[in-house]
């Protein structure tokens, strides 16, 4: 097989570019600690509403500056629909769906998850600045899909520390 000189160069350059981009991703995972959701356990959606922790959705403080948000999604709402945490909190979300597949998205953050009935989605985010974020479902879940939303209010540390 004869390969043209320039074509050989092009192939090597393409491979090098792809490899560097891939290494940048490895860097983002290990050095910047941006992680993807893993296998965080299963829960039967038929009984999830009676099974801890999903029997009592809400915001729980776990330590100084650390919170856990337990949430359930169903067509077409999130429960709780509003989350309040103080600025500077590390928040761990634990979310599942009780009916069909939903999504969980907070724009301008790295919060972007699928919620699959039967599966638990667990992910972390640090809310550094006070402000208000909206969250919504980003997977089609029926005719009311575009109305499925919630709010995350990040309060200034003074008022938020309760």
């Amino acid at each position, binding site marked *: 097989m004869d390969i043209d000189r320039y074509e050989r160069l092009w192939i090597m350059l393409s491979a090098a570019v*792809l490899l560097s981009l891939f290494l940048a991703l490895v860097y983002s995972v290990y050095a910047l600690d941006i992680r993807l959701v893993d296998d965080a356990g299963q829960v039967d959606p038929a009984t999830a509403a009676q099974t801890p922790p999903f029997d009592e959705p809400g915001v729980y403080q776990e330590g100084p500056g650390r919170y856990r948000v337990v949430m359930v999604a169903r067509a077409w709402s999130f429960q709780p629909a509003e989350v309040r945490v103080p600025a500077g909190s590390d928040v761990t979300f634990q979310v599942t769906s009780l*009916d069909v597949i939903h999504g969980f998205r907070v724009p301008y953050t790295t919060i972007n998850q699928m919620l699959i009935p039967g599966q638990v989605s667990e992910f972390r985010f640090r809310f550094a600045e006070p402000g208000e974020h909206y969250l919504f479902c*980003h997977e*089609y879940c029926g005719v009311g899909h575009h109305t499925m939303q919630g709010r995350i209010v990040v309060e200034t540390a003074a008022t938020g520390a309760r």
Partner: protein
Amino acid sequence: MTMGAQASIARGDGTAQELYRPPETERRLSLAFITVGFAHLAVGILLGLLQGLQHAGIDLYAYVPFVRHYYQGLAMHGVFNVLVFTTFFIGGFLFFVAGYGFRRPLVTSGLAWTTFWLMTAGLLLVDWALLTNQASVLYTSYAPLQAHPAYYLGLVLVVVGTWLQLVILLRTFFAWRRENPGKRTPLIAFGALVTLIMWTMASAGIAVQFVGFLLPWSLGWMQGIDPLLSRTLFWFTGHPIVYFWLLPAYISWYFMLPRQVGGRLFSESLARLAFLLFIPLSLPVGFHHQYLDPGVSEGYKAIHAFLTFAVFMPSAMTAFTVLASIETGGRARGGQGRLGWLLRLPWRDPSVAAQLLAMVLFAFGGISGLINASFTVNLVVHNTLFVPGHFHLTVGTASALTFMGIVYWLVPYLSGRRLFSPRMGVWQAWLWFVGMTIMSRGMSWAGVLGAPRRTALGTAPYFAAEWTVPTWLTAIGGAVLTISGLLFFINLIGTLTASPRAEKLEVPVVESAPDGQDPVPGWLDRFAPWVTATAVLVLISYGPTLYRLFGEMSLTIPGLRPY
């Protein structure tokens, strides 16, 4: 059965090329497939316009018969455009290039017609379920959203049809090999075989999903379903399907377009290698659609991310070989300088213009695809409008506009009628290019700003002010695309009904390199090693996860129809 006519004509370079004309029944077969496919695209395009306008706040669904709401229209838009239009066009095109490439009748055209009617019967079930709002589950069929059993059964029949097509192509291939011992597989037929071999292996995922789970579950024979397993099986097929859409365009770009611009294939070996690489590399990449799924381990997601970067390589090779091949045409036509040859290409030929413009946008589609595939960067764009912004450049342009370009010579050839208006064809191609550039820009922009895909944004309470301009761009681009589509269909219908009979028409096909000039090693003309490599890669990348998911499978979750 009528045999194809054979004749010889003298070519400019002194060699004689055998002309082959496929039997009439095969020409009608390909035309039938292509017509059914494009009829669905026509409906799909109009529904796309409605979506674009809805995002910009203009809701016209109340005025459209059959379509009750945004999501029913969206389900039809997706299924018609990427499942029906593509599969039926590809069905007709691959039958044609295989028969023409092998220069012999298909084995058999009777079975090929059975395939057509089977697929069409399935399609009618799908159409009925969609039109009556009993299958508004979108083309991904994500359970526990449930559709009418007719919808799942119909799609199964369409897929079975594509398998029958592989059977016919293989039988024709074996017959050809007996008649032509020691010869290399003709290029276009080789491309058709690679496409269907890859696709048939890839479709194992949805075959198990639909026949094993969705269909019995929708019939009430199975109590519940496992949504994660179902969706994992879907994406087993759901990514490689994009190469099923793309490879027929590559057949044209590599093996036909260079001839249309008066050039030659720059490197036959690398062309064959790129095609063959798609067999093993298309499949083990599906988790890049499931990066954000709970219940799939991060490690296997990373393996799929790496392999997704690997499947970029044959496309990078394509960029070089195809451009270099086209350059030989531009130079043969007197083009000078670094880029001067570009201007000498036959831009007034609508088939050429459409395909060259499709390639330009495909470059951006490839780059945005790399962004989606990028593991952590995907967190910014997953399930946002950035994703349709990407795939309207790939399947919506690289495939769709190329298929339209192919129609500009193929339908005249099949129907024996001249193209109704080449000028209108050139306008159509440019309008698609401009419309898609605007629309894709709008979608990608809105997506980066967080706007979700598959959402009736125009009535979403969280619609952000900053999404206004991008959604307007999307609507304007969509309107330009609709005009382009209209011109295309006027041309197509005009050709079939109102155009004068044509004289002898040529099928543009590049020559295989003469032996000795570009030696093609034997391993570039065999399929078995690549099929084996696919099995190994799939076992490594999917085996452990599928084994676990089947082990943990709980068929308890009932179906819902919230539409």
